[in-house]
Structure formats: structure tokens, C-alpha cells
């Protein structure tokens, strides 16, 4: 591997990116005035903004490195991990989203306490914090690895620099900063991924020539069923990713849950997830993995490009190191000044847009599920201050964990190993808790407690996983033995524990409406505190006027004509928003319809609405009825 001396133009682009992202993030700190703003952004954002920020969270810096490495080694089958989430969408859209959105829980552990009691909450808190902090560590490690390959910096230097930048804007601005910077970063990383693809295809002379240069065994969408035993084979990826990573991401990742609590309605949450899974995830799969396929095609084609790729992929030991596939493709294809810096910035964006979410999530759980339990009577400003301190601590712990992940053979292995080992008890408890009314606290505690014990046993005695291995052979000891199929073992064992315990100790208490799957109308009724209004409705456009007659802080009054168009009754839940759609709801907030009737083409609002929605008097706004 050759060390890169970065041209001035590339350095300028990278420095410019760092400055812009910090300024952008800190700018939005003005929108974080309370812990609610800091963690949830005030339930105001539009679906498309949440969708883009989700994809920025999905794509970590490890994604570019990991999937390019897998693309080079195994071919197109490496995209399997981005295309196997859909099977969980009925549970997510019809059960989990309504539960977390309408029950107003602030964290997943809080859901566990309300559904199963305090012991379940403590266990859930411990497991989720381990998951989130480890996730921060692996993202920092992979970015360090990439920067080392590209710039020759020491791993820990690049880790510390990017951790400080992400830490600054998350600590300052919280969830609003995360959402807004993630939009920018999602566009940046998708653009960079497709830029490499276009440059690569052009270098081959067209898509057909590129495809022809790729040997046939690298062209399949799914890998071989259970070969090779170690690494990417179909059944390894299916269980580790579709069950371990994907379920953990959608169901137990507090960062993602908080993202969907920011959205203005559950309906918009569903629209966001559909955009993510049907459009943005496939695009992201192409963006993060194509460099590996290009590197493979160039390597096989030989010639000048093949020689360049081989040179850039040669490690210190003189052998080809597949983990350099992304950086080798980038260095071979990019020659224009500044463009290489742009790709580096995108790689950094991928890291920060994932880590920022995780930092914010760790802070939320630490404040709501740990700190407030010991010191419940402090002011909101105090908790906000503590959240910022915890954000810094989370970054520091992530940095400390970097050497742990660097001990794995590949980045893909490191990521797979930790998700398969940590996630099964939590995801089984969440899905059974959400879908099965009889699933009791005894069953939940057993799944979390005994399930975790079963996972620990499988680390010391990996041979217990053999009956679940689908013919995959054990290829290591300890955590590295059956590191992918540990997810299958964990899911089956935890599900078994859950079923047996529920049959022995079924839930017999009062109906837990709002905490288990049920009709959306019932969820809405609980959320609103009155019968939901589902009649047809249309938005209205009015001018904001401050009116002191409105006593409740969240009330607004509209004229009769607007009431008729909205088809709304007093106390219906509305959303008042700046008319500029492209702000994505940044200047907006939820409101309730007052019994008072406004005059003219005006909407009367209280001072509270002006502050919560960051609106101004005489501003044109759009008002929609939510329920």
C-alpha cells in the first residue's frame, strides 16, 4: 500500500467539510431549548427529512469499507444485507411504530417498564447501552482504518479528530442538529458513491464492458447457501443480518426510535420508512458496495488499472488486503484535484451521521433510564446539561473500544460478531412484547436474563450453536466461533424461552392498551385523550397573529371557513407549519384547535406556539389536521 500525500485542493475540501458540518450543526442548537427538543426535536419533522436522515444513519463509515471489501471478495451478493429488511415491516408498521409513537415513551427501556416492570427496564437499559456504545466503537474504528489507507494517518488520530467534530455538534444541538446535518450528509455520501460508480463504468468504456470484466461468480445477488463457512455465505448473512442487525436497527436502536418520534405523525413515519426501504436502501447498497465490484473487475481485467488497484490493495506484508478495496478503487479512478477530498468527506459524513445518532441515543437512555431514576426532581435545564456531558462520555468510551474491534480478521466479521452476540434477547423480547398480549413480565425477564446467559455460554462453548448452523462449520473459538450463526441460535433459544415462560406464566392483568398491538383508532384515542377525528380533511393557509386570549400554551384558533375546510372540532390535534415545505417542518409544531373562532384569514396563536414552532407574527403558515 502506498502512502498518499494529499494535494492541497483535497485538503481544502476536507477541512471545508469539517468546518461546514460543525457550523451547520451548532447553528441548529438554537432549536434545542429543552430535553424534549434535544432528544426528539419536538415531533415536527416531515417524512422525507426523516427518511434521508435514516439512510444517513443506516450507512456508516464501516458501510463503504465493509461492503466494498465484501463486494471484492464475494461479489454482488454483498448487497444482500441491504435488501432483507422488508419481511419485518408488517410488525414494524402495524405494531411497533404505533406503540412507540402513540404511547409517548421516551426510550425503549421506558416501554419495558410500562409493559413489564422495573426489572425488565434495567435489563433492557444494560443491553441497549452495550449495543449502542459498541456501535459507536466500530464506526470509529472503520473510519480510522479508511483514513489510514487513504492518508497514512495513524488510526487513533483520525478516530479522535472525527469523534471531536461529531461530539461538538451533537452536544450542542441534539436531535435537530442530527436530523438536519444528516440530510446534508446523506446526499453527500450517496453522491460520492455514485460518483465512483460512474467514473468506474466510464473507465471500462460502459456498463456492458464493466459487467463482462466481472467473473460470473461475482455477479449473483445472493451468496452460496452455506459456503464458505467463514464470512459471507447466504445463511450466515441471512441470520446475522436479517435477524440480528436489521431487527436491532428497526426495533431496538434507540437512535432510530427517537428519529421516528420526531416525525409529525405516525402516518408520516410510515411514509418515511417506505421511502427508506423501497428507494433509499437499494440506492445506498449500490453507493456503498460498487467500489468493491469495480476493484474486482479492474483486478481481473489487469492492464494499467489492474496494476494500480493491486498496488493500492497491497498491505505491509506484500499481500492483497481486501479491506482496501474501496480506497483502492477511489485512488485508481479519481484524478481530479478536490474530488478525492470530496470522497473522503463523504466517508467521514457516513461515520458522523451514524455516530451522531448513537451519541444522542446513549445520552437519552442514560438520562431517562439511569440518571433520572437516581435524581428525579431536578430541572429540565439540569437534565439537558447532563445529556450534553453524557454525549461527551459516550464518544470517549467509543474511542476506548476501537482496539477491541481491530482484533477481528475483517471489518465485516467485527460488525457481524458483535450484532449476532448482543441483539437476540432484546429483539425477541420486543417482538413478543409488541405482538403477544399474553407475553408476561416473567417471560420477558427470562428472555432478557436467561437469553443473555445463553449468549454468553455460546461464546465460551461455541459448539452449542452447531445444531442451528445450517451446515456451516465452526471456524474459530470464543466469540469468533459461529460468529454469524450465533444469531440463529440466540433467536431460537430466546423464542423458546419466551414461549415456554408465557405458557407457564401468561399475562392475566388488565388490558395493556397502547403497549401491545391493537387497532390504530384505539392508539389514537389514547394519544389524543378523546375520540380521534378521521373525517376527510384539507390543509388551510393563514397568517399568524399573536392573541393573548388563548390561555392554553398549545392552542390555536382559526376562522369558521378554515374549520370547515379542516373538518376539525375543538381539541382536535393540528400541525402548524411554515409554508416553505423544504424546511421539512423545522419551523413548525403540533397544536390543538381552540373553541375560540379567529377573524379574517388569520390564525390566532399563543406565545407558547410561537416559541415551540419557531414562528413569527404575520408569517404565512399552513395548518393540517392530524387527528
Amino acid at each position, binding site marked *: 500500500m502506498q502512502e498518499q500525500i494529499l494535494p492541497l485542493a483535497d485538503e481544502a475540501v476536507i477541512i471545508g467539510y469539517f468546518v461546514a458540518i460543525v457550523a451547520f450543526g451548532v447553528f441548529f442548537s438554537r432549536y434545542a431549548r429543552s430535553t424534549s427538543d434535544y432528544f426528539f426535536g419536538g415531533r415536527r419533522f416531515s417524512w422525507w427529512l426523516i427518511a434521508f436522515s435514516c439512510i444517513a444513519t443506516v450507512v456508516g463509515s464501516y458501510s463503504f469499507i465493509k461492503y466494498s471489501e465484501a463486494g471484492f471478495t464475494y461479489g*454482488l451478493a454483498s*448487497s444482500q444485507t441491504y*435488501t*432483507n429488511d*422488508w*419481511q*419485518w*415491516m*408488517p*410488525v414494524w*408498521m*402495524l*405494531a411497533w411504530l*404505533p406503540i412507540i409513537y402513540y404511547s409517548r415513551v421516551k426510550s425503549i427501556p421506558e416501554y419495558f417498564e410500562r409493559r413489564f416492570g422495573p426489572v425488565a427496564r434495567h435489563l433492557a437499559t444494560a443491553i441497549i447501552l452495550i449495543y449502542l456504545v459498541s456501535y459507536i466503537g466500530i464506526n470509529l474504528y472503520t473510519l480510522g482504518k479508511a483514513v489510514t489507507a487513504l492518508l497514512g494517518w495513524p488510526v487513533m488520530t483520525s478516530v479522535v479528530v472525527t469523534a471531536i467534530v461529531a461530539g461538538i455538534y451533537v452536544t450542542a444541538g441534539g436531535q435537530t442538529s442530527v436530523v438536519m446535518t444528516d440530510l446534508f450528509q446523506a446526499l453527500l455520501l450517496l453522491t460520492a458513491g455514485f460518483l465512483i460508480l460512474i467514473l468506474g463504468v466510464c473507465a471500462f468504456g460502459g456498463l*456492458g464492458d464493466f*459487467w*463482462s470484466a466481472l467473473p*460470473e461468480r461475482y*455477479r*449473483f*445477488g*445472493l*451468496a*452460496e*447457501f452455506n459456503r464458505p463457512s467463514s464470512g459471507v455465505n*447466504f*445463511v450466515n448473512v*441471512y441470520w446475522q443480518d436479517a435477524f440480528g442487525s436489521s431487527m436491532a436497527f428497526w426495533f431496538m436502536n434507540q437512535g432510530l426510535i427517537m428519529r421516528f418520534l420526531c416525525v409529525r405523525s405516525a*402516518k408520516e413515519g*410510515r411514509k418515511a420508512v*417506505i421511502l427508506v*426501504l*423501497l428507494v433509499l436502501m*437499494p440506492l445506498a447498497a449500490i453507493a456503498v458496495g460498487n467500489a468493491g465490484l469495480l476493484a474486482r473487475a479492474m483486478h481481473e481485467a489487469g492492464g494499467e488499472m489492474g496494476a494500480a488497484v493491486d498496488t493500492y490493495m497491497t498491505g505491509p506484508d506484500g499481500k492483497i488486503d481486501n479491506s482496501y478495496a474501496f480506497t483502492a478503487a477511489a485512488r485508481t479512478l479519481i484524478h481530479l484535484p478536490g474530488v478525492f477530498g470530496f470522497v473522503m468527506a463523504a466517508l467521514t459524513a457516513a461515520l458522523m451521521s451514524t455516530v451522531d445518532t448513537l451519541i444522542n441515543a446513549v445520552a437519552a437512555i442514560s438520562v431517562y433510564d439511569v440518571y433520572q431514576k437516581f435524581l428525579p426532581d431536578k430541572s429540565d435545564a439540569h437534565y439537558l446539561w447532563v445529556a450534553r456531558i453524557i454525549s461527551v462520555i459516550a464518544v470517549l468510551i467509543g474511542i476506548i473500544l476501537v482496539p477491541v474491534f481491530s482484533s477481528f480478521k475483517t471489518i465485516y466479521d467485527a460488525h457481524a460478531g458483535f450484532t449476532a452476540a448482543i441483539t437476540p434477547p432484546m429483539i425477541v423480547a420486543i417482538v413478543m412484547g409488541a*405482538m403477544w*398480549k399474553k407475553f408476561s413480565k416473567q417471560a420477558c425477564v427470562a428472555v432478557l436474563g436467561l437469553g443473555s446467559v445463553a449468549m454468553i455460554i455460546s461464546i465460551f462453548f461455541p459448539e452449542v450453536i452447531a445444531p442451528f448452523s445450517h451446515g456451516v462449520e465452526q471456524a474459530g473459538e470464543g466469540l469468533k466461533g459461529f460468529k454469524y450463526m450465533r444469531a440463529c441460535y440466540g433467536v431460537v433459544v430466546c423464542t423458546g424461552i419466551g414461549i415456554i415462560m408465557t405458557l407457564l406464566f401468561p399475562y392475566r392483568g388488565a388490558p395493556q392498551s397502547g403497549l*401491545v*398491538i*391493537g*387497532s*390504530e383508532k*384505539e392508539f389514537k384515542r389514547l394519544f389524543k385523550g378523546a375520540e380521534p377525528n378521521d373525517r376527510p380533511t384539507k390543509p388551510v393557509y393563514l397568517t399568524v397573529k399573536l392573541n393573548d386570549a388563548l390561555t392554553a400554551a398549545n392552542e390555536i384558533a382559526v376562522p369558521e371557513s378554515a374549520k370547515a375546510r379542516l373538518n376539525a372540532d375543538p381539541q382536535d390535534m393540528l400541525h402548524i407549519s411554515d409554508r416553505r415545505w423544504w424546511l421539512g417542518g423545522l419551523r413548525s409544531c403540533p397544536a390543538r384547535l381552540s373553541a375560540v373562532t379567529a377573524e379574517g384569514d388569520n390564525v390566532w396563536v399563543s406565545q407558547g406556539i410561537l416559541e415551540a414552532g419557531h414562528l413569527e407574527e404575520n408569517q404565512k403558515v399552513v395548518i393540517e389536521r392530524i387527528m
Partner: protein
Amino acid sequence: MDTALITPYLYQYGMGAFIMAASLFAARAAGALDLRERETKKTFVILIAGMLLYAVVHGLLQFVFPFVGE
């Protein structure tokens, strides 16, 4: 057809169809999937269409595109 190609595909979409069907039946039994409601019906159609879309795209990637250009 080559079993090495079709086995992963059948496993993925067999398991996927089973998980989706079980989830949808459970949702219907719990009242979360009331197809008389317009919004819920739309969600149901999107869920099924999304699964079919992924199955078709994976089918092309597994059985058609690898052999293009030979």
C-alpha cells in the same frame, strides 16, 4: 435449475413470506389490520407490493443478470 442458485432464493423468500404472513394474520386478529379503513388498506397493499418488488429484483439478480453478456 441449479439448486445452488435457487436454494438461497427460496430460503429468503420462503422465510420472508412466512414471517410476513404470520405478522399480518396476528395484526388482523388484534385489530391492527382493518382493511375497511382506507389508510390501512393502502399500507397492506404497499407491504405486499414491496415484498413482490424485492422478490422480482432478487430474482433478476440471481437468475437473469449474471448470465447477461455471455
